[in-house]
């Protein structure tokens, strides 16, 4: 809360204007309570990464990149690749992110994203099945480093990052690694990656993250940083195609009645459908013009 407070110095009048607007379903920038700001998606922005995407939601701009490294799977799950997720806030988003200032917020965002995208310990509810990253069971697998970078921050960072990671995963090309059959399997076998063909990750199950910010008695979607500074509490829900909930984080201080939380979850799942379609069309368009 304190970081956002500092970012937007609002006078009492402006605060009242924002809260009143939301009550009458007409926000400061003319949107309704449940409409999103225009979303632009661009894929393949980082040439060195195996998959990358840039998402702009109004003034918020984030970049996600997926890089694959050869690694040895951890013994407890031999058949699966490894996934790690880390978010950092660049100082370009604001002077308070300079030096160590951004650590607290990036830690919070990383934890929220891990909870929403990587699912439970047994892998249920994960964005994608990590076994598609395995090459040789128990010996060799891909280690996927998912990195998020906040370039410009104007509220609703979690949804933008969620969308960017979804687009980056869709854009990822997993190089086909074929291991010569006879190779000795104990030490690290030599893998040839020369063959140019690549496969895609099955991203059908990737959930989308919807953050409902409660201001006064109403909830709004895709809040700008001014609106976020007025929030009493917020619930970020990650919902996949089958409208099942793959992760939830309640942020913000004030207590919430359980019934309100359930109501927010249902509103979120309703909105997620509309967001899912919009995102899929944007990503498809971006992928198409990247091929050209």
């Amino acid at each position, binding site marked *: 809360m304190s970081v956002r407070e500092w970012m937007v110095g609002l006078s009492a009048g402006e605060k009242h204007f924002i809260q009143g607007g939301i009550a009458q379903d007409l926000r400061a920038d003319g949107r309704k309570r449940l409409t999103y700001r225009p979303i632009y998606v661009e894929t393949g922005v*980082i*040439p060195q990464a195996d998959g990358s995407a840039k998402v702009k939601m109004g003034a918020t701009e984030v970049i996600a990149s997926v890089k694959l490294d050869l690694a040895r799977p951890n013994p407890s799950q031999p058949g699966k690749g490894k996934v790690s997720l880390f978010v950092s806030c660049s100082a370009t988003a604001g002077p308070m992110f300079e030096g160590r200032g951004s650590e607290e917020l990036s830690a919070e965002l990383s934890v929220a994203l891990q909870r929403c995208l990587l699912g439970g310990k047994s892998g249920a509810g994960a964005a994608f099945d990590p076994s598609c990253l395995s090459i040789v069971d128990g010996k060799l697998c891909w280690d996927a480093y998912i990195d998020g970078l906040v370039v410009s921050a104007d509220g609703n960072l979690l949804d933008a990052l969620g969308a960017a990671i979804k687009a980056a995963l869709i854009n990822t090309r997993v190089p086909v690694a074929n291991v010569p059959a006879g190779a000795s399997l104990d030490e690290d076998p030599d893998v040839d990656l020369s063959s140019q063909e690549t496969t895609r990750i099955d991203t059908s199950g990737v959930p989308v993250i919807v953050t409902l910010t409660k201001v006064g008695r109403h909830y709004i979607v895709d809040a700008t940083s001014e609106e976020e500074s007025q929030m009493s509490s917020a619930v970020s829900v990650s919902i996949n195609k089958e409208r099942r909930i793959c992760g939830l984080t309640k942020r913000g201080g004030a207590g919430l009645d359980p019934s309100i939380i359930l109501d927010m979850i249902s509103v979120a799942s309703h909105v997620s459908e509309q967001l899912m379609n919009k995102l899929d069309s944007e990503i498809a368009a971006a992928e198409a013009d990247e091929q050209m």
Partner: protein
Amino acid sequence: MEYVNPEGIREDGRRPLEMRHLHAEIGTVARADGSAVFEMGNTKVIAAVYGPREVQNRSQQLNDQALVRCEYSMPNFSTGDRMRKPKGDRRSTEISLVIRQTMEACILTHLMPRSQIDIFVQVLSADGGTRSACINAATLALADAGIPMRDLVTSCSAGYLNSTPLLDLSYFEDSAGGPDVTVGILPKLDKVTLLQMDARLPIDIFENVVQLATEGCKAVANYIHEVLLENTKQLEYRRGL
């Protein structure tokens, strides 16, 4: 290692005296006072300027000029290898110092005493020549922020491999271990504000490599002029004049 094949074509298809493709956008970060993205080939850098604003810690305040602070950060996905220490590693501190000194020389700091100007440079993808790209991006961001400057600062790097001077080295050519000369000039005043070189080079060859780099800087300067003119036309158009 074959960096320049017999016909004089480099590994990425450019001729020795040819720059990589330049691309620049202004005003990409809404909240910043001034911001710009600068691309040289695959090297892509975004810079944001906040200021002149109140000094954060009183002890650093200068009572006759503006305090210029700079932070250069490189995310761990921007280069080939993954292991990248967090913000405070030595290389990024050194590059922030270089950028700060270069920009401090060209900003008219005495016009804004007791204030602070923050320049934040974030590398998005690094393919050699990051230092020059950062300086060009910072210049554009400062211009976008409307901060009074003596002249634009443009920078370019040049090297010397297989006994031919090469302009604007890529990461592949840069990591070949050959000399890498980075030059920063004030194009109008024709003054050199930054000259850095590592590895060894005979004097006469050094002179024409520096000359080559200066040509490169002038080319960048022209491109930046065009971009700025285009941007002001846009602003004019948007304001409906």
